[in-house]
Structure formats: structure tokens, C-alpha cells
């Protein structure tokens, strides 16, 4: 039998692509050594172009359909559970912990799928005013999100850095350092779940290489850091981001409804009451 090895590639605009730089970096796990794409400045540029387009499609998808697509993602992961568990064990997790991680991931996807057509009722509101008009705060997705995933190897953690913003209709560029093998495997299930191309792009590499480009890119609307960066790193990001008034959230809440709030923008409208 020939031993066929998988080439791990970034997932951009519904396609598996190598870094345009041709560069990779090495990650050694228990079973073998992985060569992963080392994302460059131009890869980020391409991913943002894709995400802009993905945002248009994904945010205009009906909440009902978004819910179904998210639910389908949980079905895909359920079907590939064993291979996820195996991969997590290569990373050094016990079988028990690995199974727990996948189970929690699936549960969380289902929870967010359920939220897809309800968050607007929960997060928006009718404001109390003492005049003859309605005053309504209507919530909108912010746009293109760059999300740096956490340093623990966990599918659930990776998902929690993506799902809140994806659920409300943002498009997401998910970037992993430690979680990279898992993230690129996860991209295959994304590809099988009917997400419009560009709604979720998955890249791997060293964040320090692209920190400046990401924080300066005018078309990224929010940078979510699910990983602790040194003070210098965070300061540099915030300074760069100020030029385009980009929002930066460092380790945002991943609990319940509060998890989606950073990714929303409020539009307030008023409407006269009929007499």
C-alpha cells in the first residue's frame, strides 16, 4: 500500500490554496511532522477581498438558512468525529478529553444555529421614549472579522472564536498558530456545509508576520484576539487600527448572548406612531 500524505493548505474563498509565498512552517505532532502554509501579506490581502465578497453573500442570507447551514456543520463534524479525536490525541490530549472536546463543539454549533434567527430579537430593542414615535435599536453585523484563535489545541475553542461573529452574519478570517492542523482539517467540514465562498476563510501561520498588515488593512472591520498577546503587540495593533477606526477586542466573552455583542453595530431608527 502506498502511504498517501495530505498536503495541508489554507482555505480561501471555498478553495484550498498554498501560500502565494510558497513558504511553509513545520509542526511536529506525535504521529508525524506537518508542513503548514505560512500565510503572507498577500495571502491576507486575498483573504480580505474574498471575505468582503463573502460578507455580502452571508449577511444577506436569511437567518433561517444561516441556521440550517450551521446545523449542517454540526452534522459534518459528527460524521468525522473519530478522525477529530485521533488528531487531538496526536496533539497529546487523552482520548476522554478529545471526545469531550468534540461533543462540546457539536453542542455549541447547535446552540449557535438555534441563535441564528433569534439574536436580533434578543440584542435589539424598542427604546423607551415619551413622544409619539417608536425608537428602535436595530442590530447589524459589523462586517469582516479577523479572528486569531487561542493557543490551546481544541476544536471547541477554535469554534468559539468563529461562531459568534459568523452567526450574526459577519464573514470571518480565522487565523491559527497552535491550532493550525486542526483548523485546516476543520476547513474541510466548512467546505461540506454549504457556506457561501468567502464567508469563512481559514489561514495558518505566524501572527507576528502579518500583525501589521492585518491591523492596518482598512477593509477588516474588527480584529478579535482570542489569544493573549504581549502588551507591545496589543499596543501596536491598536495604534495601527486607529487609522481606520478598526475595532479591536482582546479575549472577548464567549459566554451565551454576550459573545455576539462585539460583532454588532447598532442602527437606531424612529417611526411615528399612528393615531
Amino acid at each position, binding site marked *: 500500500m502506498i502511504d498517501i500524505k495530505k498536503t495541508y493548505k489554507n482555505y480561501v474563498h471555498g478553495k484550498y490554496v498554498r501560500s502565494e509565498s510558497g513558504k511553509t512552517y513545520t509542526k511536529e505532532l506525535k504521529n508525524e511532522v506537518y508542513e503548514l502554509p505560512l500565510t503572507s501579506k498577500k495571502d491576507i*490581502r486575498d483573504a*480580505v477581498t474574498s471575505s468582503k465578497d463573502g460578507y455580502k453573500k452571508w449577511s444577506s442570507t436569511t437567518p433561517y438558512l444561516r441556521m440550517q447551514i450551521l446545523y449542517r456543520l454540526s452534522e459534518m463534524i459528527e460524521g468525522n468525529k473519530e478522525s477529530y479525536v485521533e488528531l487531538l490525541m496526536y496533539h497529546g490530549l487523552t482520548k476522554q478529553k478529545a471526545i469531550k472536546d468534540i461533543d462540546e463543539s457539536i453542542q455549541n454549533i447547535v446552540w449557535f444555529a438555534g441563535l441564528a434567527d433569534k439574536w436580533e430579537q434578543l440584542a435589539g430593542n424598542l427604546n423607551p421614549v415619551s413622544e409619539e414615535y417608536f425608537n428602535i435599536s436595530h442590530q447589524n453585523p459589523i462586517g469582516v472579522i479577523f479572528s486569531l484563535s487561542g493557543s490551546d489545541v481544541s476544536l471547541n475553542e477554535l469554534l468559539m472564536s468563529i461562531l459568534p461573529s459568523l452567526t450574526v452574519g459577519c464573514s470571518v478570517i480565522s487565523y491559527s498558530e497552535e491550532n493550525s492542523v486542526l483548523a485546516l482539517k476543520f476547513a474541510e467540514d466548512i467546505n461540506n456545509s454549504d457556506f457561501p465562498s468567502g464567508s469563512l476563510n481559514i489561514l495558518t501561520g505566524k501572527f507576528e508576520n502579518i500583525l*501589521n*498588515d492585518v491591523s*492596518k*488593512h*482598512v*477593509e477588516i472591520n474588527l480584529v478579535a484576539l482570542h489569544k493573549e498577546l504581549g502588551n507591545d503587540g496589543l499596543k501596536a495593533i491598536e495604534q*495601527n487600527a486607529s*487609522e*481606520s477606526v478598526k475595532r479591536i477586542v482582546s479575549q472577548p466573552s464567549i459566554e451565551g448572548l454576550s459573545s455576539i455583542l462585539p460583532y454588532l453595530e447598532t442602527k437606531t431608527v424612529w417611526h411615528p406612531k399612528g393615531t
Partner: protein
Amino acid sequence: MGNIKTFGASMQWSNVLEMVHESRIDSVGLNERVNSLATRSIKKDSKLEALSMVVSMCDLTTLEGEDTEGKISQMVAKAIKPNPLDNSVPSVAAVCVYPSLVGIAKEKVQNSNVKVAAVSSYFPSGQVPMESKLLDTKYAIDSGADEIDIVINRKAFLEGDYRKVYDEIVALKEVCQDVHLKTILEVGDLKTYENIRKASLISLAAGSDFIKTSTGKLSIGSSRQACYVMLKSVLDFESETGVKAGIKVAGGIRDAKDAIRYLVMINEEMGSDWLNPESFRFGASSLLDDVLKQIKKLKTGAYQAGYYFPRG
């Protein structure tokens, strides 16, 4: 078919026929040359200069049924000052509109150096009697157009009636007199490189000041290959007659990178003398937006978003 010498025609018909009949093109060689020209590496400073040049060569265009006075004045404002936050970005060469909007455009450009170009002769199809084409053109000129973009009679061309194509352009040039005449070949309709060369030579012989690739209304717009055929025709025509014409590429050129590739081609094949708005133009609606973004990207190092630049 007598040899009628009319106003503006640069070459008599019998000579045109001779040139047209010699049109043979090696498409494999052409593709190879064009593709190799597209791989030139352009360094940062040159890129900035090239992008500025692209802006100055743009014919900022809107040719839609929905064009209104408001839309034209917005576009003209953008044409005069493409990036209000950066004075080093030059004005575009011209704005290009339908004849009925020339008056408004003319009023808005005032004394800036932006010219007003009008498409006429029943752009984009040109499928009307000659009298209507003449009237259409005359109307645009009377309204103050500085430049006229006409379409060739593709029906006649594809039927093999080259004389009719020539005569129509000659007649329209007569209406134009010294108003700059750009003749659109609509390369997407012509299909072959030989046809593009023939149409180029006929248009040049009939007195066109510029030949232009496309209307922008077909899914097949300009291509670097078509432009290459046209530039060779322009050079051959110049060596034959001494008349120097220009080229305008339009339709489907959406990004700065592609525009620079055209400039490289012009520079290498024709020489830097041709790198100016008098000899080379881009027909652009979305191209300008990308060029402005790239200029700012080069200056700040940050990738830009379209919504920070003027609409129009």
C-alpha cells in the same frame, strides 16, 4: 470605387485595400510576446509613477440609461479631483458620457483641463441609418463635446463591406472636423486578430485620431492581445503615412495591475513618447477606484477600502 479624397481621411481607399489585404497575424507568437510583457516586475517608485499616469490617462465613463444630471456632476467632480485628500493625484483626461448629457458635463468641467467626450453614432450597436449617426454626432459636437467616440459599422464589416465602414468613418470625421475622433472597433465582435488589424487600419485610414478597443457593453472587452494588434497597426500606419494616431483601451480593465501591464506594453513596443494622455487612454469606470486605492496603499502601506474614496 473611385479614389475620393475627403476631409480628414488619412489614406485613399485603394491604398487601404492593399494594407488590409496584407493582414496576417501569427497568433502563437503574439500571445507569447504579450504574456512575456505581462511578467515585468515594477518597483515601488515606478509603480507610483505609473499609477499617477494611469489616472491622467483615464476617460472616466458613465454610459447608462440611468445617468442623471446629478450623477454626471458627481462624476465630473471626481474627474477633476479624483482624491480630494491627495493633491498629488492628477485630474483624469476626460469624462465620457452620452450626447444628451454633454451640455451638463461641459458646464460642470468649467475651466479645468478635463475634456468632455461623447459616444455617438448610436453607441453601442451603431445599427441605424447613416443620417441618424451624423445627426447624433452633430448634436454632441454642438453641445460642446471635445472628443467623439464612434462605433464602426460591424454589420458592414462582418459582411465584408469594408468600403462602407471606411466611408462612414470618413463622413463622421467630416462632421467632427478638428474635434478629436475615437473609433471603437468592438474587438469582441470582430473575433479574430486579422479582423482587428483590418478594422484598425480602415479606421486609421479614414481619419480617426484614436482607435479604441471596445464599448464596454460586451462581456468580451479589451484584451492585451487586441491592444497589441492595434498598436502594431498604429505603428505600421505611422510608418506608411506619417500620421500618428492614439489608442484607447476600454472594457473589462478593472484593476491597477492590469492597467500597468498595458503601460508596459505601450512603453516597450511603441516607446515612452506614447505614454501620455494624447496618445493613450483608458476607458474606465471601476478602474479608477482601484488605482486610487493602490496609490494610497503604496503611500501608507495599508490596504484600502473603496468606501473612503469619492463615488462617481
